[in-house]
Protein backbone atom coordinates (compact mmCIF):
# COMPACT_ATOMS: atom_id res chain seq x y z
CA UNK A 1 0.00 0.00 0.00
CA UNK A 2 2.83 2.36 0.89
CA UNK A 3 4.58 1.52 -2.35
CA UNK A 4 1.38 2.23 -4.25
CA UNK A 5 0.98 5.65 -2.63
CA UNK A 6 4.65 6.38 -3.12
CA UNK A 7 4.46 5.51 -6.80
CA UNK A 8 1.31 7.55 -7.32
CA UNK A 9 2.83 10.58 -5.64
CA UNK A 10 6.11 10.31 -7.56
CA UNK A 11 4.18 10.03 -10.81
CA UNK A 12 2.03 13.06 -10.09
CA UNK A 13 5.06 15.16 -9.15
CA UNK A 14 6.90 14.31 -12.37
CA UNK A 15 3.68 14.71 -14.35
CA UNK A 16 3.52 18.28 -13.08
CA UNK A 17 6.91 19.11 -14.57
CA UNK A 18 5.97 17.44 -17.85
CA UNK A 19 2.81 19.55 -17.88
CA UNK A 20 4.78 22.81 -17.91
CA UNK A 21 6.43 22.20 -21.25
CA UNK A 22 3.57 20.31 -22.85
CA UNK A 23 1.24 23.24 -22.22
CA UNK A 24 3.73 25.37 -24.15
CA UNK A 25 3.91 22.72 -26.85
CA UNK A 26 0.13 22.80 -27.26
CA UNK A 27 0.10 26.60 -27.37
CA UNK A 28 2.74 26.53 -30.09
CA UNK A 29 0.65 24.12 -32.11
CA UNK A 30 -2.45 26.25 -31.63
CA UNK A 31 -0.78 29.47 -32.71
CA UNK A 32 1.79 28.31 -35.27
CA UNK A 33 0.06 25.13 -36.52
CA UNK A 34 3.37 23.30 -36.24
CA UNK A 35 4.20 20.32 -34.06
CA UNK A 36 7.59 21.04 -32.64
CA UNK A 37 9.92 18.04 -32.81
CA UNK A 38 12.60 20.19 -31.22
CA UNK A 39 10.83 20.17 -27.82
CA UNK A 40 13.14 17.46 -26.48
CA UNK A 41 16.12 19.45 -27.71
CA UNK A 42 15.14 22.47 -25.59
CA UNK A 43 14.70 20.24 -22.52
CA UNK A 44 18.21 18.80 -22.95
CA UNK A 45 19.76 22.21 -23.63
CA UNK A 46 18.25 23.50 -20.38
CA UNK A 47 19.74 20.52 -18.58
CA UNK A 48 23.20 21.12 -20.06
CA UNK A 49 23.06 24.79 -19.15
CA UNK A 50 22.40 23.75 -15.55
CA UNK A 51 25.20 21.18 -15.69
CA UNK A 52 27.76 23.70 -16.91
CA UNK A 53 26.64 26.35 -14.42
CA UNK A 54 27.08 23.89 -11.56
CA UNK A 55 30.28 22.30 -12.85
CA UNK A 56 32.15 25.39 -14.07
CA UNK A 57 30.72 28.23 -12.01
CA UNK A 58 30.09 26.12 -8.88
CA UNK A 59 26.60 27.57 -8.59
CA UNK A 60 23.53 25.81 -7.26
CA UNK A 61 21.43 24.14 -9.96
CA UNK A 62 18.45 26.33 -9.16
CA UNK A 63 20.28 29.42 -10.39
CA UNK A 64 20.10 27.93 -13.87
CA UNK A 65 16.30 28.21 -13.97
CA UNK A 66 15.99 31.97 -14.62
CA UNK A 67 19.06 31.93 -16.88
CA UNK A 68 17.56 29.10 -18.93
CA UNK A 69 14.33 31.02 -19.32
CA UNK A 70 16.03 34.19 -20.51
CA UNK A 71 18.59 32.52 -22.77
CA UNK A 72 16.33 30.02 -24.51
CA UNK A 73 13.39 32.40 -24.46
CA UNK A 74 15.54 34.80 -26.49
CA UNK A 75 16.66 32.03 -28.87
CA UNK A 76 13.07 30.88 -29.27
CA UNK A 77 12.00 34.48 -29.93
CA UNK A 78 14.48 34.58 -32.81
CA UNK A 79 13.45 31.16 -34.20
CA UNK A 80 9.71 31.83 -33.96
CA UNK A 81 9.50 34.19 -36.96
CA UNK A 82 11.50 31.75 -39.13
CA UNK A 83 9.02 29.02 -38.30
CA UNK A 84 6.15 31.40 -38.98
CA UNK A 85 7.59 32.38 -42.36
CA UNK A 86 8.03 28.77 -43.43
CA UNK A 87 4.56 27.81 -42.21
CA UNK A 88 3.01 30.67 -44.16
CA UNK A 89 5.34 30.66 -47.14
CA UNK A 90 4.14 30.50 -50.70
CA UNK A 91 5.71 27.13 -51.42
CA UNK A 92 3.41 24.31 -52.40
CA UNK A 93 3.21 22.55 -49.02
CA UNK A 94 3.99 24.87 -46.10
CA UNK A 95 2.65 22.50 -43.43
CA UNK A 96 5.05 19.77 -44.50
CA UNK A 97 7.94 22.17 -44.78
CA UNK A 98 7.38 23.53 -41.27
CA UNK A 99 7.21 19.99 -39.91
CA UNK A 100 10.44 19.13 -41.70
CA UNK A 101 12.05 22.29 -40.33
CA UNK A 102 11.41 21.42 -36.66
CA UNK A 103 12.50 17.84 -37.37
CA UNK A 104 15.70 19.16 -38.91
CA UNK A 105 16.22 21.50 -35.96
CA UNK A 106 15.81 18.60 -33.55
CA UNK A 107 18.27 16.47 -35.52
CA UNK A 108 20.72 19.38 -35.66
CA UNK A 109 20.47 19.94 -31.90
CA UNK A 110 20.88 16.23 -31.14
CA UNK A 111 23.80 15.77 -33.53
CA UNK A 112 25.45 18.99 -32.37
CA UNK A 113 25.16 18.05 -28.71
CA UNK A 114 26.49 14.54 -29.36
CA UNK A 115 29.42 15.99 -31.26
CA UNK A 116 30.29 18.60 -28.65
CA UNK A 117 29.38 16.83 -25.41
CA UNK A 118 29.53 13.14 -26.32
CA UNK A 119 27.35 10.36 -25.00
CA UNK A 120 28.16 10.82 -21.29
CA UNK A 121 25.43 11.33 -18.73
CA UNK A 122 25.71 14.23 -16.28
CA UNK A 123 23.94 15.08 -13.05
CA UNK A 124 23.04 18.50 -11.71
CA UNK A 125 23.57 19.01 -7.96
CA UNK A 126 21.24 21.36 -6.08
CA UNK A 127 20.81 22.44 -2.47
CA UNK A 128 17.91 19.99 -2.15
CA UNK A 129 19.60 16.94 -3.71
CA UNK A 130 19.59 14.04 -1.28
CA UNK A 131 17.01 15.62 1.03
CA UNK A 132 13.64 14.00 1.33
CA UNK A 133 10.26 14.82 2.76
CA UNK A 134 8.13 12.41 4.78
CA UNK A 135 4.38 12.65 4.19
CA UNK A 136 2.71 10.11 6.43
CA UNK A 137 3.90 6.66 5.36
CA UNK A 138 5.69 7.78 2.19
CA UNK A 139 8.87 9.74 1.63
CA UNK A 140 9.49 11.77 -1.51
CA UNK A 141 12.73 13.38 -2.61
CA UNK A 142 12.72 17.09 -1.80
CA UNK A 143 13.83 18.00 -5.32
CA UNK A 144 10.69 16.44 -6.77
CA UNK A 145 8.53 18.41 -4.38
CA UNK A 146 10.33 21.61 -5.35
CA UNK A 147 9.88 20.75 -9.03
CA UNK A 148 6.17 20.16 -8.51
CA UNK A 149 5.80 23.49 -6.70
CA UNK A 150 7.59 25.14 -9.60
CA UNK A 151 5.29 23.37 -12.03
CA UNK A 152 2.19 24.56 -10.19
CA UNK A 153 3.46 28.14 -10.21
CA UNK A 154 4.32 28.05 -13.92
CA UNK A 155 1.15 26.26 -15.01
CA UNK A 156 -1.02 28.49 -12.80
CA UNK A 157 0.73 31.58 -14.13
CA UNK A 158 0.22 30.41 -17.71
CA UNK A 159 -3.46 29.77 -17.20
CA UNK A 160 -3.93 33.17 -15.51
CA UNK A 161 -2.04 34.78 -18.38
CA UNK A 162 -4.12 32.99 -21.00
CA UNK A 163 -7.53 33.47 -19.41
CA UNK A 164 -7.21 36.74 -17.53
CA UNK A 165 -5.17 39.08 -19.71
CA UNK A 166 -5.83 40.78 -23.02
CA UNK A 167 -2.72 39.26 -24.55
CA UNK A 168 -3.82 35.83 -23.40
CA UNK A 169 -7.13 36.46 -25.12
CA UNK A 170 -5.27 37.35 -28.31
CA UNK A 171 -3.30 34.08 -28.10
CA UNK A 172 -6.45 32.03 -27.58
CA UNK A 173 -8.21 33.85 -30.38
CA UNK A 174 -5.30 33.16 -32.73
CA UNK A 175 -5.33 29.49 -31.79
CA UNK A 176 -9.05 29.32 -32.49
CA UNK A 177 -9.09 31.12 -35.81
CA UNK A 178 -6.07 32.82 -37.22
CA UNK A 179 -7.74 34.81 -39.93
CA UNK A 180 -10.42 36.24 -37.68
CA UNK A 181 -7.82 37.10 -35.04
CA UNK A 182 -5.77 38.90 -37.68
CA UNK A 183 -8.87 40.82 -38.77
CA UNK A 184 -9.37 41.92 -35.15
CA UNK A 185 -5.94 43.51 -35.23
CA UNK A 186 -3.72 40.79 -33.75
CA UNK A 187 -0.22 40.88 -35.19
CA UNK A 188 0.06 37.12 -35.74
CA UNK A 189 3.71 37.22 -36.73
CA UNK A 190 4.84 39.00 -33.60
CA UNK A 191 2.51 36.91 -31.45
CA UNK A 192 3.98 33.73 -32.91
CA UNK A 193 7.49 34.88 -32.04
CA UNK A 194 6.43 35.70 -28.48
CA UNK A 195 4.63 32.39 -27.99
CA UNK A 196 7.54 30.36 -29.34
CA UNK A 197 9.97 32.30 -27.14
CA UNK A 198 7.80 31.79 -24.06
CA UNK A 199 7.48 28.10 -24.85
CA UNK A 200 11.21 27.56 -25.48
CA UNK A 201 12.04 29.37 -22.24
CA UNK A 202 9.60 27.35 -20.16
CA UNK A 203 10.74 24.11 -21.76
CA UNK A 204 14.38 24.87 -20.96
CA UNK A 205 13.41 25.63 -17.33
CA UNK A 206 11.65 22.28 -17.15
CA UNK A 207 14.85 20.80 -18.57
CA UNK A 208 16.86 22.18 -15.65
CA UNK A 209 14.51 20.46 -13.21
CA UNK A 210 14.46 17.19 -15.16
CA UNK A 211 18.27 17.18 -15.15
CA UNK A 212 18.27 17.83 -11.39
CA UNK A 213 15.76 15.03 -10.74
CA UNK A 214 17.18 12.47 -13.17
CA UNK A 215 20.23 13.29 -15.30
CA UNK A 216 20.98 14.68 -18.74
CA UNK A 217 22.57 13.37 -21.95
CA UNK A 218 22.01 14.31 -25.60
CA UNK A 219 20.02 11.16 -26.45
CA UNK A 220 17.45 11.73 -23.70
CA UNK A 221 15.81 14.44 -25.83
CA UNK A 222 13.96 11.77 -27.83
CA UNK A 223 12.23 10.74 -24.61
CA UNK A 224 10.93 14.24 -23.91
CA UNK A 225 9.76 14.72 -27.48
CA UNK A 226 7.84 11.48 -27.06
CA UNK A 227 6.35 12.78 -23.79
CA UNK A 228 5.13 15.92 -25.52
CA UNK A 229 3.63 13.87 -28.37
CA UNK A 230 1.95 11.51 -25.95
CA UNK A 231 0.35 14.38 -24.09
CA UNK A 232 -0.65 16.07 -27.35
CA UNK A 233 -2.35 12.93 -28.63
CA UNK A 234 -4.10 12.18 -25.34
CA UNK A 235 -5.29 15.74 -24.88
CA UNK A 236 -5.95 16.38 -28.56
CA UNK A 237 -3.51 18.61 -30.46
CA UNK A 238 -3.83 22.22 -29.34
CA UNK A 239 -5.92 21.57 -26.22
CA UNK A 240 -4.25 23.39 -23.32
CA UNK A 241 -6.51 22.27 -20.50
CA UNK A 242 -6.31 18.67 -21.63
CA UNK A 243 -2.51 18.86 -21.61
CA UNK A 244 -2.45 19.30 -17.84
CA UNK A 245 -4.61 16.22 -17.26
CA UNK A 246 -2.75 14.13 -19.83
CA UNK A 247 0.67 15.08 -18.45
CA UNK A 248 -0.33 13.99 -14.94
CA UNK A 249 -1.64 10.72 -16.39
CA UNK A 250 1.64 10.23 -18.23
CA UNK A 251 3.62 10.76 -15.04
CA UNK A 252 1.50 8.21 -13.18
CA UNK A 253 1.62 5.60 -15.99
CA UNK A 254 5.39 5.95 -16.23
CA UNK A 255 5.86 5.65 -12.47
CA UNK A 256 3.65 2.58 -12.19
CA UNK A 257 5.23 0.73 -15.11
CA UNK A 258 8.74 1.58 -13.88
CA UNK A 259 7.97 0.40 -10.35
CA UNK A 260 5.88 -2.67 -11.01
CA UNK A 261 7.06 -3.94 -14.43
CA UNK A 262 10.52 -2.54 -15.04
CA UNK A 263 11.87 0.75 -16.32
CA UNK A 264 12.89 -0.70 -19.71
CA UNK A 265 9.19 -1.29 -20.39
CA UNK A 266 8.02 2.22 -19.50
CA UNK A 267 8.57 3.65 -23.00
CA UNK A 268 6.84 0.64 -24.52
CA UNK A 269 3.82 1.17 -22.24
CA UNK A 270 3.68 4.82 -23.26
CA UNK A 271 3.72 3.91 -26.94
CA UNK A 272 1.04 1.27 -26.43
CA UNK A 273 -1.24 3.78 -24.70
CA UNK A 274 -0.56 6.34 -27.42
CA UNK A 275 -1.63 3.92 -30.14
CA UNK A 276 -4.66 2.76 -28.25
CA UNK A 277 -5.83 6.37 -27.94
CA UNK A 278 -5.12 7.03 -31.62
CA UNK A 279 -7.15 3.98 -32.58
CA UNK A 280 -10.08 4.53 -30.24
CA UNK A 281 -10.35 8.26 -29.95
CA UNK A 282 -7.97 9.95 -32.38
CA UNK A 283 -8.75 13.52 -31.38
CA UNK A 284 -7.83 12.97 -27.75
CA UNK A 285 -9.63 11.36 -24.85
CA UNK A 286 -11.41 14.64 -24.19
CA UNK A 287 -12.19 15.04 -27.92
CA UNK A 288 -10.98 18.61 -27.89
CA UNK A 289 -8.25 18.32 -30.51
CA UNK A 290 -8.01 20.58 -33.51
Amino acid at each position, binding site marked *: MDLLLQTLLNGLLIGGVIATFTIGFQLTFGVLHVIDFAVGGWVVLGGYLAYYMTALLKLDGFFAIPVAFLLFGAIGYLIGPILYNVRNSRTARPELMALALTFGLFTLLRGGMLTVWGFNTHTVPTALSGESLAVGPVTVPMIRVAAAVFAIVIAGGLFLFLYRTRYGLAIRATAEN*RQNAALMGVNIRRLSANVYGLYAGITAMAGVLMAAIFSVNPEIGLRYTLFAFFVAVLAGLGSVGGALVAALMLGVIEAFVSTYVGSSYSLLAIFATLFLVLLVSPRGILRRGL
Partner: protein
Amino acid sequence: MKSHWADLIILVVVVVVLALLPVLVNNYWLRIATGALMWAGLACSWNMLGGYAGYINFGQSAFFGLGAYTTALLMGDPINLPFFATIPAGIAVTAICAIIIGAPTLRLRGAYFAIATWAFAEALTQFANVMDFTGGIGGLNLPPFLNERFFYFTMSGAAVLTYLVTWALFEHSRFGLKVKALRDHEPAAEAMGINTSLVKLQTFVLSAVTAAVFGAIFAYWVTFINPKSVFGGDITDQMVVMVLLGGLGSLRGPAIGGIGLFVVSRLIWMRWGDTAFYIAILGAAIVLVVLFLPNGIAGLFARRPAKSVTVLDKAAGKLAGTGEGGRN
Protein backbone atom coordinates in the same frame (compact mmCIF):
# COMPACT_ATOMS: atom_id res chain seq x y z
CA MET B 1 4.43 11.99 -75.75
CA LYS B 2 7.80 13.72 -75.97
CA SER B 3 8.41 13.24 -72.26
CA HIS B 4 7.87 9.49 -72.67
CA TRP B 5 10.81 9.30 -75.11
CA ALA B 6 13.05 11.28 -72.78
CA ASP B 7 12.12 8.98 -69.88
CA LEU B 8 12.76 5.89 -71.99
CA ILE B 9 16.21 7.08 -73.13
CA ILE B 10 17.19 7.91 -69.55
CA LEU B 11 15.99 4.51 -68.41
CA VAL B 12 17.98 2.67 -71.08
CA VAL B 13 21.14 4.65 -70.25
CA VAL B 14 20.70 3.98 -66.53
CA VAL B 15 20.12 0.26 -67.04
CA VAL B 16 23.17 -0.05 -69.33
CA VAL B 17 25.37 1.80 -66.83
CA LEU B 18 24.03 -0.35 -63.98
CA ALA B 19 24.69 -3.54 -65.94
CA LEU B 20 28.25 -2.54 -66.88
CA LEU B 21 29.30 -1.19 -63.46
CA PRO B 22 30.43 -4.53 -61.94
CA VAL B 23 33.07 -5.01 -64.66
CA LEU B 24 34.25 -1.39 -64.41
CA VAL B 25 34.85 -1.00 -60.68
CA ASN B 26 36.32 -3.10 -57.88
CA ASN B 27 34.35 -4.68 -55.02
CA TYR B 28 34.87 -1.74 -52.71
CA TRP B 29 33.15 0.70 -55.02
CA LEU B 30 30.57 -1.91 -55.97
CA ARG B 31 29.57 -2.01 -52.30
CA ILE B 32 29.20 1.75 -52.27
CA ALA B 33 27.14 1.57 -55.47
CA THR B 34 24.89 -1.06 -53.85
CA GLY B 35 24.39 1.24 -50.86
CA ALA B 36 23.69 4.22 -53.11
CA LEU B 37 21.04 2.24 -55.01
CA MET B 38 19.43 1.15 -51.75
CA TRP B 39 19.19 4.73 -50.53
CA ALA B 40 17.88 5.94 -53.88
CA GLY B 41 15.14 3.30 -53.62
CA LEU B 42 14.38 4.18 -49.99
CA ALA B 43 14.16 7.87 -50.85
CA CYS B 44 11.74 7.01 -53.69
CA SER B 45 9.65 4.94 -51.27
CA TRP B 46 9.42 7.83 -48.81
CA ASN B 47 8.60 10.21 -51.65
CA MET B 48 5.54 8.14 -52.64
CA LEU B 49 3.68 9.25 -49.55
CA GLY B 50 5.60 12.39 -48.57
CA GLY B 51 5.93 13.88 -52.02
CA TYR B 52 2.88 12.69 -53.92
CA ALA B 53 0.27 12.42 -51.14
CA GLY B 54 1.66 15.17 -48.90
CA TYR B 55 1.83 13.17 -45.68
CA ILE B 56 5.13 13.21 -43.82
CA ASN B 57 6.17 9.84 -42.42
CA PHE B 58 8.79 10.20 -39.69
CA GLY B 59 8.85 6.46 -39.03
CA GLN B 60 9.78 4.93 -42.37
CA SER B 61 12.69 3.18 -40.62
CA ALA B 62 10.05 1.04 -38.84
CA PHE B 63 9.12 -0.60 -42.14
CA PHE B 64 12.72 -0.90 -43.29
CA GLY B 65 13.42 -2.62 -39.96
CA LEU B 66 10.35 -4.87 -40.17
CA GLY B 67 11.54 -6.15 -43.53
CA ALA B 68 15.04 -6.68 -42.18
CA TYR B 69 13.93 -8.45 -39.00
CA THR B 70 11.42 -10.67 -40.80
CA THR B 71 14.12 -11.87 -43.18
CA ALA B 72 16.61 -12.34 -40.35
CA LEU B 73 14.15 -14.32 -38.23
CA LEU B 74 12.92 -16.51 -41.08
CA MET B 75 16.39 -17.24 -42.43
CA GLY B 76 17.63 -17.86 -38.89
CA ASP B 77 18.01 -21.16 -37.15
CA PRO B 78 14.71 -22.86 -36.45
CA ILE B 79 13.09 -21.96 -39.80
CA ASN B 80 15.92 -21.61 -42.35
CA LEU B 81 13.85 -20.36 -45.27
CA PRO B 82 15.64 -19.36 -48.48
CA PHE B 83 16.18 -15.61 -48.91
CA PHE B 84 13.65 -14.90 -51.64
CA ALA B 85 10.90 -16.74 -49.74
CA THR B 86 11.28 -14.33 -46.80
CA ILE B 87 10.51 -11.23 -48.86
CA PRO B 88 6.76 -11.94 -49.31
CA ALA B 89 6.53 -12.61 -45.57
CA GLY B 90 8.21 -9.28 -44.83
CA ILE B 91 5.82 -7.55 -47.23
CA ALA B 92 2.80 -9.11 -45.51
CA VAL B 93 3.95 -8.17 -41.99
CA THR B 94 4.74 -4.63 -43.10
CA ALA B 95 1.44 -4.17 -44.93
CA ILE B 96 -0.54 -5.25 -41.86
CA CYS B 97 1.39 -2.89 -39.60
CA ALA B 98 0.99 -0.03 -42.08
CA ILE B 99 -2.76 -0.56 -42.22
CA ILE B 100 -3.04 -0.64 -38.43
CA ILE B 101 -1.19 2.66 -38.11
CA GLY B 102 -2.45 4.33 -41.24
CA ALA B 103 -6.17 3.56 -41.09
CA PRO B 104 -6.95 5.66 -37.99
CA THR B 105 -4.35 8.41 -38.43
CA LEU B 106 -4.50 9.16 -42.15
CA ARG B 107 -8.02 10.49 -41.70
CA LEU B 108 -6.69 13.20 -39.37
CA ARG B 109 -4.39 16.15 -39.96
CA GLY B 110 -0.88 15.40 -41.14
CA ALA B 111 0.51 16.22 -37.71
CA TYR B 112 -1.17 13.23 -36.05
CA PHE B 113 0.14 10.96 -38.76
CA ALA B 114 3.67 12.32 -38.32
CA ILE B 115 3.46 11.69 -34.57
CA ALA B 116 2.00 8.21 -34.97
CA THR B 117 4.63 7.03 -37.45
CA TRP B 118 7.49 8.51 -35.45
CA ALA B 119 6.22 6.92 -32.25
CA PHE B 120 5.71 3.59 -34.01
CA ALA B 121 9.34 3.50 -35.14
CA GLU B 122 10.58 4.38 -31.68
CA ALA B 123 8.24 1.80 -30.15
CA LEU B 124 9.55 -0.94 -32.44
CA THR B 125 13.12 0.00 -31.50
CA GLN B 126 12.18 -0.37 -27.82
CA PHE B 127 10.34 -3.60 -28.53
CA ALA B 128 13.30 -5.11 -30.37
CA ASN B 129 15.57 -3.94 -27.53
CA VAL B 130 13.68 -5.72 -24.76
CA MET B 131 12.43 -8.88 -26.51
CA ASP B 132 14.38 -12.15 -26.51
CA PHE B 133 13.40 -13.49 -29.94
CA THR B 134 14.80 -10.37 -31.64
CA GLY B 135 18.12 -10.85 -29.90
CA GLY B 136 17.71 -7.70 -27.79
CA ILE B 137 20.25 -4.89 -28.18
CA GLY B 138 22.74 -7.46 -29.54
CA GLY B 139 20.63 -8.10 -32.63
CA LEU B 140 20.61 -11.04 -35.01
CA ASN B 141 23.06 -12.74 -37.34
CA LEU B 142 22.11 -14.04 -40.77
CA PRO B 143 23.75 -16.86 -42.72
CA PRO B 144 26.62 -15.09 -44.53
CA PHE B 145 26.52 -14.98 -48.30
CA LEU B 146 29.53 -13.12 -49.60
CA ASN B 147 28.74 -12.39 -53.21
CA GLU B 148 28.92 -8.66 -53.88
CA ARG B 149 27.56 -9.01 -57.41
CA PHE B 150 24.46 -10.86 -56.24
CA PHE B 151 23.58 -8.05 -53.83
CA TYR B 152 24.47 -5.39 -56.34
CA PHE B 153 22.11 -6.85 -58.94
CA THR B 154 19.33 -7.57 -56.43
CA MET B 155 19.56 -4.02 -55.12
CA SER B 156 19.63 -2.57 -58.66
CA GLY B 157 16.60 -4.64 -59.58
CA ALA B 158 14.68 -3.44 -56.54
CA ALA B 159 15.69 0.19 -57.11
CA VAL B 160 14.81 0.19 -60.82
CA LEU B 161 11.52 -1.53 -60.03
CA THR B 162 10.71 1.09 -57.39
CA TYR B 163 11.49 3.84 -59.87
CA LEU B 164 9.32 2.23 -62.56
CA VAL B 165 6.44 1.74 -60.14
CA THR B 166 6.65 5.41 -59.19
CA TRP B 167 6.80 6.40 -62.85
CA ALA B 168 3.83 4.27 -63.85
CA LEU B 169 1.62 4.62 -60.81
CA PHE B 170 2.19 8.19 -59.70
CA GLU B 171 3.12 9.97 -62.93
CA HIS B 172 1.15 8.13 -65.61
CA SER B 173 -2.08 6.74 -64.19
CA ARG B 174 -5.45 7.74 -62.82
CA PHE B 175 -4.27 6.64 -59.40
CA GLY B 176 -1.46 9.20 -59.51
CA LEU B 177 -3.91 11.94 -60.42
CA LYS B 178 -6.10 10.99 -57.48
CA VAL B 179 -3.13 11.08 -55.10
CA LYS B 180 -1.98 14.48 -56.36
CA ALA B 181 -5.51 15.86 -56.27
CA LEU B 182 -5.99 14.93 -52.62
CA ARG B 183 -2.59 16.40 -51.79
CA ASP B 184 -3.41 19.71 -53.44
CA HIS B 185 -6.93 20.07 -52.11
CA GLU B 186 -8.48 17.29 -50.14
CA PRO B 187 -12.08 18.60 -49.90
CA ALA B 188 -12.15 19.26 -53.64
CA ALA B 189 -10.80 15.78 -54.36
CA GLU B 190 -13.47 14.26 -52.14
CA ALA B 191 -16.15 16.30 -53.87
CA MET B 192 -15.04 14.75 -57.15
CA GLY B 193 -15.80 11.33 -55.74
CA ILE B 194 -12.32 10.21 -54.76
CA ASN B 195 -12.23 7.99 -51.68
CA THR B 196 -9.33 9.95 -50.22
CA SER B 197 -8.91 7.82 -47.09
CA LEU B 198 -8.55 4.68 -49.21
CA VAL B 199 -6.15 6.27 -51.71
CA LYS B 200 -3.96 7.59 -48.87
CA LEU B 201 -3.91 4.20 -47.20
CA GLN B 202 -3.00 2.45 -50.47
CA THR B 203 -0.16 4.91 -51.03
CA PHE B 204 1.08 4.48 -47.45
CA VAL B 205 1.06 0.68 -47.67
CA LEU B 206 2.88 0.76 -51.02
CA SER B 207 5.50 3.11 -49.59
CA ALA B 208 5.95 0.98 -46.45
CA VAL B 209 6.19 -2.29 -48.37
CA THR B 210 8.83 -0.86 -50.70
CA ALA B 211 10.97 0.13 -47.72
CA ALA B 212 10.52 -3.39 -46.28
CA VAL B 213 11.89 -5.00 -49.44
CA PHE B 214 15.03 -2.88 -49.19
CA GLY B 215 15.25 -3.78 -45.50
CA ALA B 216 15.15 -7.47 -46.36
CA ILE B 217 17.94 -7.17 -48.93
CA PHE B 218 19.95 -4.98 -46.56
CA ALA B 219 19.74 -7.54 -43.75
CA TYR B 220 20.99 -10.37 -45.98
CA TRP B 221 23.68 -8.11 -47.42
CA VAL B 222 25.24 -6.92 -44.14
CA THR B 223 24.50 -10.31 -42.41
CA PHE B 224 24.12 -8.65 -39.01
CA ILE B 225 21.35 -6.37 -37.78
CA ASN B 226 20.45 -4.78 -34.45
CA PRO B 227 17.65 -2.39 -33.42
CA LYS B 228 19.80 0.69 -33.90
CA SER B 229 21.07 -0.27 -37.34
CA VAL B 230 17.66 -0.95 -38.93
CA PHE B 231 15.05 0.84 -36.79
CA GLY B 232 17.18 3.86 -35.83
CA GLY B 233 15.81 7.34 -36.37
CA ASP B 234 18.92 8.25 -38.37
CA ILE B 235 17.62 6.08 -41.21
CA THR B 236 14.44 8.12 -41.46
CA ASP B 237 16.42 11.36 -41.04
CA GLN B 238 18.55 10.39 -43.99
CA MET B 239 15.55 9.55 -46.19
CA VAL B 240 13.89 12.88 -45.37
CA VAL B 241 17.05 14.80 -46.23
CA MET B 242 17.51 12.89 -49.49
CA VAL B 243 13.96 13.58 -50.66
CA LEU B 244 13.96 17.23 -49.61
CA LEU B 245 17.36 17.74 -51.17
CA GLY B 246 16.37 16.06 -54.40
CA GLY B 247 12.93 17.63 -54.61
CA LEU B 248 9.74 16.68 -52.79
CA GLY B 249 7.18 15.10 -55.09
CA SER B 250 9.40 14.89 -58.15
CA LEU B 251 10.18 11.64 -59.96
CA ARG B 252 13.95 11.94 -60.36
CA GLY B 253 14.73 14.19 -57.40
CA PRO B 254 14.72 11.56 -54.63
CA ALA B 255 16.87 9.17 -56.67
CA ILE B 256 19.41 11.92 -57.34
CA GLY B 257 19.28 13.10 -53.73
CA GLY B 258 19.65 9.55 -52.44
CA ILE B 259 22.68 8.67 -54.54
CA GLY B 260 24.30 12.08 -54.00
CA LEU B 261 23.90 12.18 -50.23
CA PHE B 262 24.96 8.56 -49.78
CA VAL B 263 28.20 9.11 -51.69
CA VAL B 264 28.87 12.27 -49.65
CA SER B 265 28.19 10.34 -46.42
CA ARG B 266 30.68 7.63 -47.47
CA LEU B 267 33.31 10.27 -48.24
CA ILE B 268 32.74 11.80 -44.78
CA TRP B 269 32.96 8.33 -43.29
CA MET B 270 36.25 7.57 -45.07
CA ARG B 271 37.74 10.84 -43.86
CA TRP B 272 36.44 11.05 -40.28
CA GLY B 273 35.05 7.62 -39.47
CA ASP B 274 31.74 6.97 -37.73
CA THR B 275 30.90 10.32 -36.21
CA ALA B 276 27.97 11.96 -34.47
CA PHE B 277 28.88 15.01 -36.50
CA TYR B 278 27.09 13.43 -39.45
CA ILE B 279 23.77 13.63 -37.55
CA ALA B 280 24.35 17.35 -37.09
CA ILE B 281 25.11 17.70 -40.81
CA LEU B 282 21.86 15.90 -41.67
CA GLY B 283 19.90 18.23 -39.39
CA ALA B 284 21.58 21.32 -40.81
CA ALA B 285 20.90 20.04 -44.33
CA ILE B 286 17.17 19.67 -43.60
CA VAL B 287 17.00 23.18 -42.13
CA LEU B 288 18.94 24.78 -44.99
CA VAL B 289 16.97 22.99 -47.71
CA VAL B 290 13.64 23.98 -46.14
CA LEU B 291 14.73 27.59 -45.82
CA PHE B 292 16.58 28.14 -49.08
CA LEU B 293 15.77 25.33 -51.51
CA PRO B 294 12.16 24.29 -50.81
CA ASN B 295 11.81 22.65 -54.23
CA GLY B 296 15.08 20.76 -54.00
CA ILE B 297 17.64 20.13 -56.72
CA ALA B 298 14.88 19.06 -59.13
CA GLY B 299 13.28 22.49 -58.60
CA LEU B 300 16.42 24.17 -59.93
CA PHE B 301 16.05 22.44 -63.29
CA ALA B 302 12.27 22.68 -63.59
CA ARG B 303 11.19 24.56 -66.70
CA ARG B 304 9.10 26.93 -64.65
CA PRO B 305 9.16 27.49 -60.90
CA ALA B 306 6.57 25.51 -58.98
CA LYS B 307 3.43 27.54 -58.62
CA SER B 308 2.72 28.87 -55.17
CA VAL B 309 -0.94 28.01 -55.30
CA THR B 310 -2.35 25.09 -57.27
CA VAL B 311 -5.11 25.42 -59.81
CA LEU B 312 -7.47 23.47 -57.58
CA ASP B 313 -6.72 25.85 -54.71
CA LYS B 314 -7.61 28.85 -56.82
CA ALA B 315 -10.88 27.36 -57.98
CA ALA B 316 -11.89 26.22 -54.53
CA GLY B 317 -10.77 29.50 -53.01
CA LYS B 318 -13.00 31.45 -55.38
CA LEU B 319 -15.97 29.26 -54.57
CA ALA B 320 -15.74 28.92 -50.82
CA GLY B 321 -13.18 31.34 -49.43
CA THR B 322 -9.93 29.75 -48.36
CA GLY B 323 -9.90 26.17 -47.20
CA GLU B 324 -7.67 25.31 -44.31
CA GLY B 325 -6.71 28.39 -42.30
CA GLY B 326 -2.99 28.12 -42.97
CA ARG B 327 -2.95 29.22 -46.58
CA ASN B 328 -3.17 32.95 -46.81
